[in-house]
């Protein structure tokens, strides 16, 4: 057998591929099933959002932030609004901040549902994805009632949020939470405790804590590597200090610390934490306060710059905003979690099996438009 000659193959995975979660291409160098490397090629969804920002007014740019990360539009809306507010010194009401947190945590639940469901589908379990989508639809209905949109919400605005919650909405969300909390256990019985899933994810795509920091992985990907770090807790913003919740981290329960299963498990547990935050929100929300404070129609922040970071569903989302005193941003940059997560693929994929690459990418929860912006 030692005379058997093998040859390295160059394969294109993508740009259109069911498991790349959007239009991304991987140039895979493989010898049989074992890859020597997978080089990601991004940019297929580059829509120059940063250039568009330079030509839109501060208010006018808000709908574009939905398109930065369409699965976490609430968080992107909020991050941009926060940057503009900080730069121009606008104070929002406490009720508006609560509404923002409610919308963002609902968004986190449905984003994670899709992430874990799609991960299951990528490794061959189709049913959990449908279960995830079923719950997601219920939240979409609630959000639609709140702001009229199901995907690109455009809900958080500079100075607050666009609408207060409709009457009877709080009860509907609480009823959903009562029904959803046990659903996480069902999800665990269906997918997490499945031995095949544990074997497919355990010990695969291990990212050490040092690598995670060096590549600036953020959010669940960073916590999956064992670093207990959540901006909501560690560098708090909005009204997050008023809530009690835990920060789940990877423990290496299915193999090695920082493997695909740890990142998956962090997301499952975070859904439970979001439920906790939402319940506290509805207990504590002040009954008085305008949803949106009076903001000038044309915002002209003084010349200067600001860099804000918030915990989006895909982790630390950075927004760097430069103003020259005019009514349009001079420069706007979104530093997105998916972009950094993509840059580590080349390193981690060395020596991996082709099928494991699919599981690894799914565990990073990449959203292609957020990479390219």
């Amino acid at each position, binding site marked *: 057998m030692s005379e058997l000659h093998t040859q390295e193959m160059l394969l294109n995975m993508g740009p259109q591929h069911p498991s790349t979660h959007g239009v991304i291409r991987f140039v895979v160098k493989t010898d049989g099933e074992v890859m020597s490397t997978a080089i990601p090629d991004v*940019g297929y969804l580059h829509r*120059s959002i940063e250039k568009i920002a330079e030509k839109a007014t501060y208010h006018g740019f808000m709908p574009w932030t939905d398109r930065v990360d369409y699965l976490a539009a609430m968080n992107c809306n909020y991050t941009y609004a926060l940057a503009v507010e*900080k730069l121009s010194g606008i104070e929002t009401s406490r009720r508006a901040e609560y509404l923002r947190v409610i919308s963002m945590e609902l968004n986190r639940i449905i984003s994670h549902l899709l992430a874990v469901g799609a991960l299951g589908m990528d490794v061959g379990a189709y049913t959990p994805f449908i279960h995830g989508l079923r719950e997601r639809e219920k939240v979409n209905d609630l959000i639609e009632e709140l702001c009229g949109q199901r995907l690109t919400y455009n809900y958080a605005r500079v100075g607050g949020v666009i609408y207060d919650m409709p009457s009877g909405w709080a009860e509907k969300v609480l009823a959903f939470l009562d029904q959803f909390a046990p659903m996480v256990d069902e999800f665990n019985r269906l997918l997490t405790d499945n031995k095949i899933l544990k074997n497919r994810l355990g010990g695969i795509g291990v990212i050490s804590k040092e690598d995670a920091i060096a590549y*600036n992985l953020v959010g669940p990907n960073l916590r999956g590597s064992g670093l207990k770090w959540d901006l909501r807790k560690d560098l708090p913003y909005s009204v997050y200090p008023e809530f009690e919740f835990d920060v789940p981290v990877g423990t290496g329960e299915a193999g090695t610390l920082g493997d695909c299963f740890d990142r998956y498990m962090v997301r499952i547990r975070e859904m439970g934490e979001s439920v906790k935050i939402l319940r506290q929100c509805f207990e504590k929300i002040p009954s008085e306060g305008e949803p949106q404070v009076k903001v000038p129609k044309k915002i002209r922040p003084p*010349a*200067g710059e600001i*860099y804000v970071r918030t915990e989006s569903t895909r982790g630390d989302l950075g927004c760097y905003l430069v103003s020259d005193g005019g009514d349009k941003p001079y420069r706007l*940059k979104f530093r997105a979690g998916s972009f950094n997560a993509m840059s580590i693929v080349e*390193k981690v994929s060395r020596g991996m099996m082709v099928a494991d690459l699919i599981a690894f990418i799914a565990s990073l929860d990449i959203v292609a438009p957020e990479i390219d912006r």
Partner: protein
Amino acid sequence: MELTAGAKLPVTGVQTGDPFIVIPVNRLLDLMQSLKNEKLFSFDCLSSLTAVDRLKEGRFEVVYHLFSYQHRHRVTLKVYLPRQEDAHLPTVEGLWSCANWLEREVFDLFGIRFDSHTDLRRIMLPDDWVGHPLRKDYKEQEDYHGISTTRPPLIL
């Protein structure tokens, strides 16, 4: 400008929002090394790396947002480069691995080169694209491989 433990960095840009420090390009690597490795600073995370085109002032600003998980502090550093076609500065890829892609993005969209970068290719745009879109004086090419880049307005 020497940077040793206990030294305070002079803040040069005081304005609305975040303060920042402007550093000379020839000291960039020394300073970054100290900021990352000195125990007092321990900036283990390069949170963001980007650039701003100041057309009127005739310069590019390369902006580094550093953060330390250990001390939970942050700093914004800037390098001013004369606004020329061959604007270039050293890479910090050796210190923070995420700089590799972030610098590629700056190269692609601003045309600023990073010396001794291991893989300085365009990242967002096709390799044969002409120009760097985030420059303030960027003019889009009229067509790309025979495909027009403009469209007649939808509403006349």
